[in-house]
């Protein structure tokens, strides 16, 4: 944690909402990204971001300043997402979702930024059939681009669990894409 972060967290711990606004502005996009890919619904993802930061604010005094705040926020968001996924019905893709993936796959423009609804469709299509843990690990490492070590810190899984969940998730996704005609 940098000195600036340290100062801001200290201010937050004293109830300074202006300082907390900085925390929200800095981290809301990454949490939105995780939530959108986990929940596959833009409005639910926004609600999840809101709920995450409320929890962060309520527990900011418990934050061990030796840890990175980003990892800590990710941890809270991940747990909330898993809880939400357990409560909701299984996410299944529709034919139009598969079309979005097809458009993305056939698009040669590697720099194209996906719109949120495209994200939802693509993720819905490729992660169908994954369990919550596999899905979380797959999202953190494969979609968010985090390292295994970061995923360990966020999820609380050990290296072996991360590796096995990621391996199983990748296998399922490959199988799924193969079924859809991608080799």
């Amino acid at each position, binding site marked *: 944690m940098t000195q*600036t972060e340290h*100062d*801001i967290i200290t*201010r937050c711990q004293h*109830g*300074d*909402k*202006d*300082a*907390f*606004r*900085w925390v*929200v*502005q800095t981290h*809301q*996009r*990454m949490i*939105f*990204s995780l939530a*959108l*890919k986990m929940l596959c619904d833009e409005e639910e993802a*926004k609600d999840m*971001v*809101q709920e995450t*930061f*409320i929890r962060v*604010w*309520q527990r900011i*005094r418990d934050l061990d300043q030796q840890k990175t705040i980003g990892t800590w926020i990710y941890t809270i968001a991940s747990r909330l997402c898993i809880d939400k996924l357990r409560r909701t019905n299984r996410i299944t893709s529709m034919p139009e979702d598969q079309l979005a*993936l097809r458009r*993305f*796959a056939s698009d040669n423009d*590697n720099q194209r*930024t*996906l719109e*949120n*609804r495209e*994200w939802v469709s*693509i993720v819905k299509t*490729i992660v169908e059939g994954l369990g919550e843990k596999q899905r979380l690990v797959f999202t953190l490492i*494969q*979609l*968010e*681009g985090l390292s295994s070590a970061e995923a360990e810190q966020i999820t609380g899984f050990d290296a072996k669990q991360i590796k096995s969940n990621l391996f199983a998730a*990748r296998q399922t*996704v*490959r199988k799924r*894409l*193969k079924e859809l005609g*991608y*080799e």
Partner: protein
Amino acid sequence: MNKTDDILERLKGQQPMIDDPDALTDRIMSSLPDLEPSQQEDKGKAHIIGWRWPAILAVAASVAVALLLVWPEPETNRQESSVVAHAVLHENPKPSDAPSETVGSIVRKEENTNKHSSLTKENHRKVTETHKIEQKQQVSDDSKAYDRTDYLPFPEPVNEPQVHYAAIQNAVDTIYKDPARMDEFIARMADFNEVKAVPLDCNPGSSDSTIVSNAYVFDGTEKFDVFGRLLQAACWYDSKTPGYLLNFSHQQLFFTLKDLRKGQKYLWIAERVNGDRILLYSTHSPIETDVSSSCYQNYREQLTHTIFSSLQF
């Protein structure tokens, strides 16, 4: 690299965008609860409990020591017992009847014990009441102490260079929210629903290009809550925003704003037409310009009285 790996690789690290990050930040900030004083209180109570128990134990120990010091020796105790027995004997004039004396003394002792116990209970009740009153006083004192913190002077912002920027409070213009964002939101919403904007010429003949009016016709079925979304966007603006006027129901929304920086006024009207369509009218123009609503009314008339499919969208 095969297609699957290619797809996964291209997805890696891309982050979806929040359409209006400021609005989300404001929404989060406005929903934050105040950090409960009870948390501080709990810490305070924990602190109080932290020193109170040892203090109580110390007092109890000192009382016990004092009692031990003052407590009569066993010899004295026996003498007192004999005195009591003697007194009992005086009250019961049967000196030779030792067992009955014993019984009498036992009975008297029991009575004494009962009296003592009732006295003890009474004392205990009084002590408990006193303790409760003290506790109440303590609580009220504590609450006064906490109340007093409300009056503690808030530290004045110091103009020291090392103070973190988060401590700096902007004095002016921090709540400015561009009304044009409402139009951006509507454009995105229309794009999402594949609804085209129909430009309306509200001042025909005047060739005043500063008046921009558009109409959108949304599908009014329940799968997309247009009124709800518009209201959500409208609620992002502070009610103290210049020109702020918001009226809404499930059938209609009327919203106006003024942008004093750019000298623009904005108007949005959404209403349900023909039962299953929602007509959204959006216009903005310089504040001093008079804008006729006839174009909107005409368009609305067309929607309600002509064949829907004949309209140009």
